[in-house]
């Protein structure tokens, strides 16, 4: 098999599968095309996603549909203040074997699923959050001195509610950095609401979804995405974008960087390029374009920059400040 044919097989197949997956999810999750695209990107880039949105916008439904379409094992953790780390990671329990011998055996928690939906993660205590985030970072759980590998692929979809913040434990910045994307689920349009009634009034369409791929396909496509070419000029552009988010308190009044107190981390740069590679494959390319970087810039950066208090009091949010930064960055390309 020649290299061209192999490329046809690999990238062409990956492109087709990603397009199919996107089409299926967009049929089920009506009016959230951008969120669906970012979710697929994060999954194939081996990242985790923090989804923020009001109740009833279909966050849980989205996770279920994604797991069903890809044939992934999924679990749900509903976070509450009394949720303990062992409730998430698992615990050793005393079991008695059939022969009468008793011993402690590790019983995996819900984190040992390929797709974990952590609902309202900011209601869990920091201790539980830390246990979960350690699993996200290391892809393993250590219990009683024994490390247990998490399944692969492994993706955490954590949700949080932007309202009802009383009694919650907001994620610290260091833990927010573990999420590749932070997605905001917008309110659907009027037309999308109409279509939603046609699709999901009496049934959960995600329950009837047939998988179009399996976990192996996910791993294979994710591996293929790691071979996507990134030109030196595109790397420079990504670095420029990260540098552009660094604070500049003495900047001109028109400079959006003056609103930023802490900029994006090098981990953000890695997430940026990894996500851009998946976007390239979704677009049928084996090379990253600057537009791929721009497309994932906002979900990668919005939870990684910290604004100055004065700017927040002025009503400026991360999306507003980063939007100006990205616009200026693209103009300089």
């Amino acid at each position, binding site marked *: 098999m020649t290299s061209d044919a192999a490329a*046809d097989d690999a990238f062409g197949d990956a492109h087709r599968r990603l397009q199919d997956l996107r089409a299926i999810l967009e049929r089920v999750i009506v009016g959230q095309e951008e969120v669906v695209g970012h979710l697929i990107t994060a999954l194939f880039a081996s990242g985790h996603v923090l989804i923020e949105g009001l109740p009833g916008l279909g966050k849980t439904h989205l996770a279920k549909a994604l797991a069903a379409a890809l044939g992934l094992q999924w679990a749900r953790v509903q976070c509450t203040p009394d949720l303990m780390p062992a409730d998430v990671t698992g615990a050793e329990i005393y079991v008695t074997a059939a022969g009468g011998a008793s011993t402690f055996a590790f019983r995996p928690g819900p984190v040992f699923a390929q797709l974990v939906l952590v609902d309202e993660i900011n209601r869990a205590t920091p201790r539980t959050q830390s246990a979960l985030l350690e699993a996200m970072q290391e892809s393993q759980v250590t219990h009683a001195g024994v490390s247990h590998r998490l399944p692969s692929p492994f993706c955490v979809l954590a949700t949080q509610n932007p309202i009802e913040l009383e009694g919650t434990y907001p994620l610290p910045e260091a833990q927010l950095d573990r999420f590749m994307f932070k997605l905001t689920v917008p309110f659907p349009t009027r037309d999308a609401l109409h279509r939603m009634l046609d699709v999901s009034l009496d049934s959960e369409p995600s329950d009837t979804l047939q998988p179009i791929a399996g976990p192996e396909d996910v791993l294979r496509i994710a591996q293929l995405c790691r071979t996507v*070419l990134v030109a030196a000029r595109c790397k420079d552009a990504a670095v420029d974008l990260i540098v552009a988010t660094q604070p500049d308190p003495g900047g001109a009044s028109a400079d959006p960087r003056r609103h930023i107190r802490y900029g994006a981390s090098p981990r953000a740069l890695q997430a940026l390029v990894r996500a851009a590679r998946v976007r390239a494959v979704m677009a049928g*390319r*084996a*090379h990253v374009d*600057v537009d791929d970087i721009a497309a994932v810039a906002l979900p990668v950066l919005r939870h990684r920059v910290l604004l100055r208090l004065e700017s927040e009091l002025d009503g400026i949010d991360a999306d507003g400040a980063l939007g100006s930064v990205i616009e200026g960055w693209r103009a300089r390309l």
Partner: protein
Amino acid sequence: MNDATVSTALVSVRRHLWREDALLAMRRAGWICAAATLFAVVVHLLARPVPVAALLVVLVLIFVAMLAWAAAHRPSDPDCAWWIDRHLGGASAFTTWLDATTRRPTAENARAVAWMQRWAVAKVPEVLRSLAGPRPTVRVAPSMLSMIVCALLALLVLMLPQEAASPLRQNSAGVAQPPGDKAATAVDAPVVAQVASEIAGALRSSDSPREPDRGRPGAAPGPGTTANDDGSGSPDAPSTSGGAGNDGTSRDQPSASRDPTTPTGPSPSAAGSVAGREAGDSPDTRGDVGTARVPGGTNPARGVGSRSMPTAIDRQADMARQADFDDSIARPGRPMTNAMPTAAAATPPPAADTAGLSPSETSYVQAWMKATGPGR
């Protein structure tokens, strides 16, 4: 095959960018040349003459320099590839292709390189079509038009006779002249004094006919003013020698007629002063006929007609009072002084105003001469 196809696109884009650079250089050269020609015009008019040949050489040099810059500014392959990626929908394929050609593909990314090359090759026809299609280009016409207009204007101005531009240069030089340096204006002072003296003589001799070459025919006294033409205590003398002696302020300035360069022969002004001496004993500076007229202007015929002091009529001397003249002030060789007259003489309106009298003022002078002539 793949490399050749992509290279074709790069070559086409390089040619396009080169042409754009040349047009940009021409546009810049046009604006610079327009500015240079305007600058040359200003210099020619205000400072010094600018040869047309020198201006043309400068314009040619500007054009040659800009075009040489454009020719030397050859777009590189990465620049061309990046331009395709950003402007022709290359989606960074051509930049990546250039990167891939400089390094050997590894086993991991061999499939990606192959896919990318196929993608770039498939994109080449679209790139070439976009390049051949209508694209926004550098607009050269405004700058070229401006340059042509400015060049024509400059040629017109630079080819004018030198006499046309010299007054502007003199004016600009006068602006730059220090206040104490009045050499240029002093050159005209004898002429002014001479003309003033002629006017004074005409006024004094009431029988003399109106001279047609005077600036103001109405300034000459009419025939009715001939009663005292003997010169003794004649009111004509004060009228010609400037009534500035009335107040002795602004008009008692050193006269250009006292300048050594001034002709010292028997002039009408001197005669007027002598006549004034016979009329009184007070110092009389009215023989300083050119005093108020010297700074007036460069045209002698009009300078004597200056009417810069409209309040002089209001400050008419008391005609009932006897004038007191000092003839020594008009004596040649005597140092010039600004001595104030001890007493205000009954004098007619100043000669400076008389020389440039309005009809009402002329009629006033004539009436005064009629009224005072027989009694004296």
